[in-house]
């Protein structure tokens, strides 16, 4: 379970550009939740993910995972339990390493990177099996450099890589936003499949309201660092894109967008 | 792959040509490796060629000169020396310590004689044993102290700037400190590690109230001599040089060795080796003992220093008239 308690986040404190984004923000994500977060630009969605992962520090409040306070824990330490897929497909893998090498990196997540050979031949079949979940034929391209693959393929691999080792949370940071609509559709379906197969707890930030409505068991809409809409369970099942769009437009008009 | 092959082929051709050129020459080749272009070192080289001629040898008949300078880069000096060795030069003439070190290392295999010049301390540089000889440009410290005493009878302290990494400078400063008291001087030595610190250090010495500055043959210090002189002229402190080139730039006077002479002496030694009268291995290195007084009357007048007749008659006027 993930808990955010009374989070205070101020950008550029003490300067003329000071901006308070969270003033006592609270959120709880239960195990097995698939939470979709929508909201306009600057509403605090990505800040929220960064606070959870420790990419940015907070001025107040606590972050807890399974009751353990991790507010002071370094970013890289937190990723022992967290997998993350970024908006930019290039962020999820090393372009100059082969697919196989990238898989080995992901396979070794959280463990010591010692002087043993980086490629464990015995694990190759496991990598192939994992990649075959994608149905993109990537299991036959193990020796290809990551940079030679398309954005969609790289994002699919990033998804597999981030979930290769056991994790508590999967963070999806607008992970379909940089892809063309068709590829985005495929990646979104794959995401859902992976989350279900591996029984992951996931938090997804997206600009695509339809994905937010169609996937996951919980949905929140954020505005100016606050949750303005929350739907869960059956209530969420009943929610349509138009319902969400209506509220979204209202907020946007208020903001003058 | 094509590109790579063509690159390698070009190098091979160039190297072959270069090697071929070296071979076709009939008279013995003298490879001169000069550490860098620098007035004293250039004088040295010109003197060297003159020395060979003085000994009755004719260029392009009795010897051929192959001149290279390393642009003050140690790695280039190494490659120049290797080039000489590969071309089987009759002997290598090295001007300044790093050039000599490189030549001596490259000459080891074929036991090519190395003749150095413009090295203050061949023993410290480990260039005193083996098929090697040459001339040393040890500063005439006694003469310089005597000169300063005669020109500035009231002076008490001499400031000297030097680079701590240059063994030549370190040994010279030691000698100054040892002999200064004999002439009634206190020596204020101030070490720097690189050229950019020299003018700052000059300020420090001026602020300490030294009566004059005296130079060594320290490349870093001499390199920025004009800006030092600007400061000292303003403060009314005379600067003494260590050789003629520094007096030309604006030092008041120097008891210095003549690098052209030093080179000429070296040339004479080489002539003996070329004639087979001696070998580099058996000849001990020579330290030039004669020095000249150089004066810059304009600079002296500006400082209000009168030159005693005994100096004036021996001195060579080196300032711009």
């Amino acid at each position, binding site marked *: 379970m993930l808990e955010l308690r009374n989070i205070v986040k101020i950008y550029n404190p003490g300067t003329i550009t000071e901006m308070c984004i969270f003033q006592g923000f609270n959120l709880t994500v239960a195990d097995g939740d698939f939470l979709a977060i929508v909201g306009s630009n600057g509403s605090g969605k990505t800040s929220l993910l960064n606070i959870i992962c420790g990419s940015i520090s907070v001025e107040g409040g606590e972050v807890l995972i399974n009751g353990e306070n991790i507010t002071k824990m370094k970013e*890289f330490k*937190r*990723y*022992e339990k967290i997998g*993350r897929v970024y908006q930019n497909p*290039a*962020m999820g893998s*090393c*372009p*100059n*390493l082969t697919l196989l*090498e990238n898989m080995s*990196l*992901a396979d*070794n*997540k959280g463990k010591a*990177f*010692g*002087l043993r050979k980086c*490629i464990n031949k015995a694990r190759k079949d496991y990598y192939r099996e994992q990649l075959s979940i994608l149905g993109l034929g990537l299991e036959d391209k193990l020796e290809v*450099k990551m*940079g030679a693959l398309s954005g969609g393929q790289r994002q699919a691999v990033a998804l597999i890589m981030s979930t290769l080792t056991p994790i508590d949370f999967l963070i999806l940071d607008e992970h379909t936003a940089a892809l063309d609509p068709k590829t985005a559709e495929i990646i979104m379906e794959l995401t859902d499949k992976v989350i279900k197969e591996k029984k992951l707890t996931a938090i997804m930030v997206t600009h695509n309201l339809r994905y937010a409505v169609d996937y996951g068991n919980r949905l929140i809409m954020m505005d100016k660092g606050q949750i303005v809409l929350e739907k869960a369970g059956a209530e969420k099942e009943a929610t349509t894109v138009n319902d969400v769009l209506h509220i979204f437009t209202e907020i946007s008009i208020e903001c003058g967008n | *792959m094509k590109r790579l092959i063509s*690159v390698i082929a070009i*190098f091979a051709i*160039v*190297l*072959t040509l*270069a*090697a*071929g050129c*070296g071979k076709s020459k009939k008279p013995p080749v003298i490879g001169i490796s000069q550490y*860098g272009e620098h007035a004293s070192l250039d004088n040295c080289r010109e003197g060297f060629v003159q020395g060979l001629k003085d000994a009755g040898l004719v260029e392009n008949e009795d010897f051929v000169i192959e001149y*290279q300078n390393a*642009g003050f*880069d140690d*790695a*280039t000096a190494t*490659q120049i020396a*290797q*080039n000489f*060795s*590969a071309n*089987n030069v009759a002997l290598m003439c090295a001007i300044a310590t*790093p050039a000599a*070190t*490189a030549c001596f*290392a490259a000459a*080891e*295999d074929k036991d090519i004689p190395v003749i150095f010049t413009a090295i203050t301390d061949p023993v*410290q540089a*480990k*260039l005193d*044993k*083996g098929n090697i000889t040459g001339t040393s440009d040890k500063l005439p410290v006694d003469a310089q102290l005597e000169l300063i005493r005669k020109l500035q009878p009231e002076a008490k302290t001499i400031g000297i700037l030097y680079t701590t*990494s*240059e*063994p030549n400078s370190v040994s010279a400063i030691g000698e100054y400190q040892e002999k200064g008291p004999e002439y009634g001087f206190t020596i204020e030595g101030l070490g720097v*590690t*690189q050229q950019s610190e020299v003018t700052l250090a000059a300020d420090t010495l001026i602020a300490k109230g030294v009566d004059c500055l005296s130079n060594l043959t320290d490349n870093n210090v001499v390199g920025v001599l004009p800006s030092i002189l600007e400061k000292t002229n303003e403060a009314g402190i005379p600067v003494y040089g260590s050789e003629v080139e520094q007096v030309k730039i604006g030092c008041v006077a120097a008891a210095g060795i003549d690098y052209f002479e030093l080179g000429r002496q070296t040339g004479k030694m080489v002539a003996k080796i070329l004639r087979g009268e001696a070998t580099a291995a058996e000849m001990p290195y020579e330290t030039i003992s004669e020095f000249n007084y150089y004066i810059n009357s304009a600079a002296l007048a500006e400082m209000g220093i009168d030159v005693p007749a005994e100096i004036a008659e021996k001195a060579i006027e080196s300032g711009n008239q």
Partner: protein
Amino acid sequence: MNNFLDLLVGTVTQGLIYALLSYGVYITYRILDFPDLTVDGSFPLGAAVTAVLLTNGLDPYLTLPVAMLVGAAAGLITGLIHVKLGVRDLLAGIITMTGLFSINLQIAGSNMAIDRATDTIFTAAPTMALFGGMSLIYRKLIVSLILAIVFKLILDIYFNTKSGLLLRAVGDNSVLVTTLAKDKGSVKILGLVIANTLVALSGAVVCHEQRAFSSTMGTGQVVFGLATVIIGTTLFKNLGFVKGTTAVMVGSILYKACIQAAISLGLPANLLKLVTAVLFLVILVIGNRQKSGVNSNA
């Protein structure tokens, strides 16, 4: 032909000795994407330590590991300044390099020479036992070749270990390394340590070969290293089977051959640097033109 052969042997020897330095620059510049200026200080550091140890009668072979250890410390300092104190990469290297200038002189006293009676790795008994039949320049070639190849192979093997893979990953995409729950700072420090170990080794071998240490011998070595890395990797760009280390070794030899060609053609030394700069620029531009793939790491 004899002349040409001697010239070739001498030039290749220099290229091989300096290839050790180039390996180091390859790791920092190419793999870590870290412009490490420590090199100008750690190269003479290796030589200074070697000069002192040789003069004090230490076994010549043992001077190499000691010099490497000291070089490692230099890399560690740059790494700590950058990672722990948050100083920018370029500045961290400059700080260490500047400090090392003084430290090198503290170690050696001043410029130092080693007399011929002292054995070096090229003249010591074990070398003579193996290659005593050869003349000195061939012995220098063989010993340098062995060193250049041994360390090339060690690096090649290392790059295929888990630790080596992580090193390659941090330069390629440091964000990914963080999400792998690894501290990218520590990986960078490790890379700097390995790189400067090799650079100091190169300085040590130069000291053996020249029998001298000079405080200014490090000047311009970073530029040399960068040039060789770029020459090597650009030439072999389209040959996937050639390892980066091999490319860099060839780059180093070609660079030295270039200088030797310029010397042989009688180009004045003052122009030599300009020619090198132009050559460097041309290769760099060609390299950039051909650069493919996205460099996405932040």
